[in-house]
């Protein structure tokens, strides 16, 4: 049986191989990222030119979505749909499946030296649940009333009373996605706990594995309350219950009839943000893990403060469960509760800063190779730094009352997720691409992609911080025009939005278009290189230490061709750089070769099995 070669469908579609599933996750979630990007472009057009027909694609939009996109214009309802779905798709269908489904699936079993995940069939199931959830989410654009319109947070009563079936689809899709990530997280945790090869002690795990391990616990424990919340909201929509509908609800000036009342909109917010905040760390922890791997490899030195990194990741995992209500300062839940969450929120910045400090200090004194993945990883540090620091004022109730629901928030969390997490994702893709495909990505196109994205991301998100400080709200479908000083009805009104603030929408729209354009080299590079890129020189082209590089390329079914045993810490780079050749392990200095690392599975003092590429510069 085991020698039997599975058919094409079993091999590439209904596969139980964690690597194939990882690639499936990667391709699907990249496609969703692209859809999210397109929604963002449409929204930016509308914000910069409210009420104008969308150029080029306006007709297609009308043909596709019908009346809400009449005359190729984006109606306010459609804008709300796009806003809600941009957030939902980017987070739940794009970034989380990418950093957790794709990267963890592909890399964690390899990095812990396992033949596969602990539960391969469950792994396949979790991918298909994710796919079904994603399809339901997309289908909701075409149901009567269109897709969900109440924001990615779906606050009731608005989400419940909004007359579209899209919200029901949204909830059902979320239940699928939650179940999917639940199964995925169990799989990852058990794989790390049970399938580590001999010698791979907890403190020898690559930091990437640690970050995914903590992430899996967050998904495991934080998602179910949101699932409970989604079930209750489904009951409200389908069975007419009032879990989130308070007494005395007034709808469009009329008292709501037929409802029992007695529910609480705050209940949803608690259940949602109990997931919602750990979710932020689900997005950022794996990104930090990826960046750590790339930085260690490209600075050619051990990561600074490995233990501090691990401790901080665990602390973040724990603390992220007790900060959720800092999203709810303006709900009037009371100063005592606000005080508690203000305190925990301030505390959680400490481990985050420790991680950033460790990564920054790791650059110090390194022989940095400015490869494409390294550029993305280095850019991650200040970009995530801006995202994190702009979040500090939001932790404090007094500042948050002013900034809440403004564009400042949008700028803040996009800095965390877009040039933060997504840059780390790009770093990871460029870094592990040679292992997955056996071919390098094109370096020139990579540089183009990097510099273009870096500049555009900042041109998009930095102005948002100013717009928010200028008083612009986050969910206005006309980009704040109706409140601007330029609007005829606001003549002489003190406190209307300044013209400059509204006009920044134009800058952002053009930058967004440019950002999308700069993704084209990446898309081309990705597919071209997968089939016709420069083949790798050997199995370990980056000269990396961790186990995934000590396999054939691409790794075969079952991953490892020999028994694995781990002898040392994950980042044994340049450990003997300052020692005379005689004292370094014998192998490091043989035949004039320059080998500055020891793989995790390389026996102590034994011969180096990995050879240096003939032309060292080609690594760049």
């Amino acid at each position, binding site marked *: 049986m085991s020698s039997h070669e599975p058919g094409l469908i079993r091999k590439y579609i209904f596969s139980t191989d964690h690597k194939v599933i990882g690639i499936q996750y990667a391709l699907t979630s990249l496609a969703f990222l692209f859809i999210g990007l397109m929604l963002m472009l449409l929204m930016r057009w509308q914000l910069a030119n409210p009420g104008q027909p969308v150029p080029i694609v306006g007709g297609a939009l009308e043909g596709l979505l019908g009346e809400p996109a009449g005359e190729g214009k984006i109606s306010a309802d459609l804008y709300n749909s796009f806003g809600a779905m941009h957030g939902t798709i980017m987070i739940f269908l794009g970034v989380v499946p990418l950093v957790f489904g794709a990267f963890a699936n592909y890399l964690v079993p390899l990095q812990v030296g396992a033949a596969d995940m602990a539960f391969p069939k469950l792994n396949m199931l979790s991918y298909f649940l994710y796919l079904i959830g994603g399809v339901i989410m997309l289908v909701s654009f075409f149901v009567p009333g269109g897709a969900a319109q109440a924001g990615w947070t779906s606050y009731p009563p608005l989400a419940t009373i909004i007359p579209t079936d899209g919200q029901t689809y949204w909830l059902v899709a979320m239940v699928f996605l939650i179940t999917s990530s*639940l199964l995925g997280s*169990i799989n990852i945790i058990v794989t790390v706990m049970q*399938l580590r090869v001999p010698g791979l002690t907890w403190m020898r795990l690559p930091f990437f594995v640690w970050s995914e391990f903590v992430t899996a616990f967050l998904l495991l424990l934080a998602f*179910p*309350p949101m699932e409970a*919340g989604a079930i209750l909201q489904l009951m409200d929509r389908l069975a007419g219950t009032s879990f989130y509908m308070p007494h005395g609800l007034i709808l469009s000036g009329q008292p709501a009839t037929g409802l029992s009342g*007695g529910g609480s909109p705050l*209940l949803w917010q608690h259940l949602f943000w109990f997931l919602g905040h750990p979710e932020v760390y689900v997005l950022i922890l794996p990104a930090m893990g990826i960046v750590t791997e790339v930085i260690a490899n490209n600075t050619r030195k051990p990561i600074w403060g490995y233990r501090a990194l691990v401790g901080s990741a665990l602390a973040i995992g724990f603390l992220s469960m007790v900060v959720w209500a800092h999203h709810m300062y303006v709900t009037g839940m009371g100063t005592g509760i606000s005080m508690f969450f203000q305190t925990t929120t301030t505390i959680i910045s400490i481990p985050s800063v420790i991680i950033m400090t460790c990564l920054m200090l790791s650059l110090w004194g390194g022989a940095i190779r400015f490869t494409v993945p390294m550029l993305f990883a280095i850019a991650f540090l200040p970009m995530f730094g801006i995202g994190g620091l702009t979040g500090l004022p939001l932790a404090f109730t007094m500042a948050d009352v002013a900034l809440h629901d403004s564009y400042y928030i949008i700028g803040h969390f996009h800095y965390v997720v877009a040039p933060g997490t997504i840059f780390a994702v790009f770093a990871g893709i460029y870094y592990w691409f040679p292992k997955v495909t056996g071919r390098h990505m094109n370096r020139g196109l990579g540089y183009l992609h990097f510099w273009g994205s870096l500049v555009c991301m900042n041109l998009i998100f930095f102005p948002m911080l100013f717009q928010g400080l200028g008083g612009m709200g986050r969910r206005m479908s006309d980009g704040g025009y109706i409140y601007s000083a330029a609007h005829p009805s606001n003549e002489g009104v003190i406190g209307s939005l300044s013209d400059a603030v509204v006009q920044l929408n134009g800058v952002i729209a053009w930058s967004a278009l440019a950002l999308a354009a700069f993704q084209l080299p990446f898309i081309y590079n990705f597919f071209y290189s997968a089939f016709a890129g420069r083949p790798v020189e050997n199995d370990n082209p980056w000269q990396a230490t961790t186990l995934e590089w000590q396999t054939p390329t691409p790794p075969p079914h079952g991953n490892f061709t020999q028994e694995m045993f781990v002898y040392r810490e994950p980042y044994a780079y340049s450990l003997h750089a300052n020692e005379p050749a005689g004292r370094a392990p014998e192998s490091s200095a043989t035949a004039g070769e320059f080998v500055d690392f020891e793989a995790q599975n390389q026996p102590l003092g034994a011969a180096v099995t990995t050879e240096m590429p003939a032309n060292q510069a080609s690594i760049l």
Partner: protein
Amino acid sequence: MKIPYTTEIREDTGLYNAKAGMWLFLASEAMLFGALFSAYVFLRIGAWEGEWPHGLLNVPIGAFNTLVLITSSLTVAMSWTSLKMGDLQRYRRFQFVTLFCAAAFLGIKGWEYFDKFNHYEIWLKEPVSSQEYPQLAGHFADPDQPVASVIGHIEGIGPFQTLASLQEEGESAVELHPDAFHYRLSARQQAELRKAERPSDPAVSHGADAEHASVRIDLSRIARMSAFVPRHGTFFATYFTLTGLHALHVLGGALMFAFILWPGARMWRDDPERYTNSVEVAGLFWHFVDLVWIFLFPVIYLL
């Protein structure tokens, strides 16, 4: 390719893979039900004074169902022990009892649901007094105190009608057969009424007689009406959501046991240890579901 620790125990964790996975799954389940219990606490604390109903559920039946589930947990444990001792027949017998208990639990639960669906509560725009409607006798614990809502059966309209849907169907009034006996009176009051032996009192004799003493209520007097279904109020919403989700878990667990017992039994010949483990892992789930009910019963039926 072989994945290690599918049956044998890894030394440093003391677990085989499936058991580790099940414990993690149970952790997430604990968070799921924990969130729902928290929602219950949140809603109940926020409820208006006198809004949270009491005594609408059948406590003896609920207690009996608790017993049924605890028995099934016991037989699951016994069946696993039997397998450990290599006695397949004994394991089978115990698992038959488990499956019977599961079916009994779901059947009783279904009957409870059905009984609830049969009752309507009607909230009136103006409270009614005992003078106006002597047929509603059981509703008036204090005859001088008017009541804002009445409870009873309504023939032939099914459990999911609302005021709006009846109006849409062109109805002008509903025929209510009052049944306040079980719901409005405390156990002591019920006993006193029974002792008084007034079989002609329609509110007391909850049977054929009651149907004759129906009340016709004009729709225009009704503010809102609902059967004892989720939309009735936050109490029944919580009750049906929590017990419904729990019942789905019971069904899932029973299906798992049935699968292991019949189509999965081939594994006993090939790999008895792994087969025993699968019973243990499914059993863990079953005990958890049992435990959830042990919390559910007092919280929803008794408090």
